[in-house]
């Protein structure tokens, strides 16, 4: 599925929830299901420090495609991490680079990705895109896409 198809899918999923409790319960579920990051990446080097909660992120590149794994020490944050990974994982670097992640707003999680929340999520999104950009320019810099 394309990134936008995935975004629409998530919006549809969340549309059935009546209130924040349902949404949070679902995020907690997603957070619980997301396999933790490989312990070798659960180190300071892969840490995106958000003061309030920690987020770890790793990105690998193969043939234009990026594979993300990520983790957090807070479960609701991890649920949101799971959504971000679901949308961007195994997508083309060239697409991730500039993607508009509008689903966050649509499913009512905007405040959690606000710069006022020092939970690491906003930095994580930035970092995901930066990885895409970095790999893209390294391996595909001279291609036109």
């Amino acid at each position, binding site marked *: 599925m394309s990134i936008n198809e995935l975004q629409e899918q998530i919006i549809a999923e969340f549309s059935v929830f009546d209130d*924040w*409790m349902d949404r*949070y*319960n679902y995020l*907690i579920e997603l957070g619980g299901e997301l396999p933790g990051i490989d312990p070798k990446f659960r180190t300071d080097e892969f840490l995106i420090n958000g*003061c*309030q*909660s*920690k987020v770890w992120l790793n990105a690998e590149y193969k043939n234009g495609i990026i594979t993300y794994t990520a983790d957090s*020490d*807070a*479960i*609701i*944050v991890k649920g949101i991490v799971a959504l971000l990974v679901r949308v961007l994982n195994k997508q083309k670097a060239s697409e991730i680079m500039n993607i508009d992640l509008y689903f966050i707003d649509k499913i009512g999680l905007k405040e*959690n990705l606000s710069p006022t929340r020092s*939970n690491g999520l906003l930095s994580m999104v930035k970092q995901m895109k930066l990885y895409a950009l970095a790999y893209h320019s390294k391996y595909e810099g001279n291609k036109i896409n």
Partner: protein
Amino acid sequence: MKPTTNIDIQKIREDFPVLHQKVYNKKLVYFDNGATTQKPQSVIDKINELHSFTNSSIHRGVHYLSGLMTEEYEAAREKVRSFINAKEKSEIIFSSGTTASINMIAFSFGEKYISEGDEIIISEMEHHSNIVPWQLLCERKKAVLKIIPFDENGELIISEFKKLISDKTKLISVTHTSNTLGTVNPVKEIINIAHKINIPVLLDGAQAIQHEKIDVQELDVDFYVFSGHKIYGPTGTGILYGKQKWLEEMPPWQGGGDMVDKVSFTKTTFNSLPFKFEAGTPNYIGAIGLAKALDYVENIGVEKIKSYEKELLNYSTRELNKIDGLKILGHSKDKISVQSFIIESIHPYDMGMILDKLGVAVRTGSHCAQPVMDHFGIDGSLRASMVFYNSFEEIDILIDGIKKAQSMLK
């Protein structure tokens, strides 16, 4: 059953407009008073009035409004003096907050009295604002910072403190009351020990001034600092009290307007106290607002506030302790109405997010006291800090919220 109390909580709450806010359509329960307090209507109105009718720059003005504002500003200084019972008005310096007050002392005392190898003693339970200025000073002057540890109850270990004192000790700077553990430190004892060998003591009163009567003469403390915004006054205001003999000797921190007597390129002389330490146009509107806040507190009565907050503390301790896996940090004998706690296998931030959605504002994280977190081997905690406008019912809402969040997060 709720304790009975001598405070008319409904009436008091009327005075604080923010308390009647709704967030996410829920009644706001504001338990983040350790970070900042809400302002009574009288303070809001005063600021409004100043801005609308008399605003004018103070000192050296020849005109009516300037005279009026200068009088109010200096009356505010007198109010602060009497509130903490300082001997002289000139011992009261207006600053922009506790942090600025401590930095002022660290710089100015440091320039005068600290040289290589000297020692400064702080404690393990300090707010970053009473750690980092000393670290910066020690780095600059090659001096050494010594740390008084605290025990499992969150009380300073006085026997260890005594061991830290040496003939190189130049200053002791400790918090009067911990913003995280709630501990009210035995400051009188600390001061006595220090003064026996002529070491001055600075107390960080940021979390003490709003909870109990402070008498700087009775304490015989050398420096006392606090923030206006934590005692129901405006942001951007703070106090530095210093004994005259120190302030006279210490060099100015900032240079600028009002703190000078004469300025020329060959020789500049400084103004007398307190102006020597008040460079530039002060936040005079803030200072007058702060005085109004002190009026408000005096009208309610500091003793009344203290005894009511004690009840809030006891009630919340009892109720929090009933919650499975919840651990309160800080069990000092003398404690303010601040509860820091962690809950088994739940991240404080997750808990905080859910409480937020329930309208309950608590703080999560390290509370600018990372060494306290390190002491317990944790990254952060939750903190509910209560003051006299909070109610037992609000504590119940917090407790219910924690239980609800617990059931969601388990």
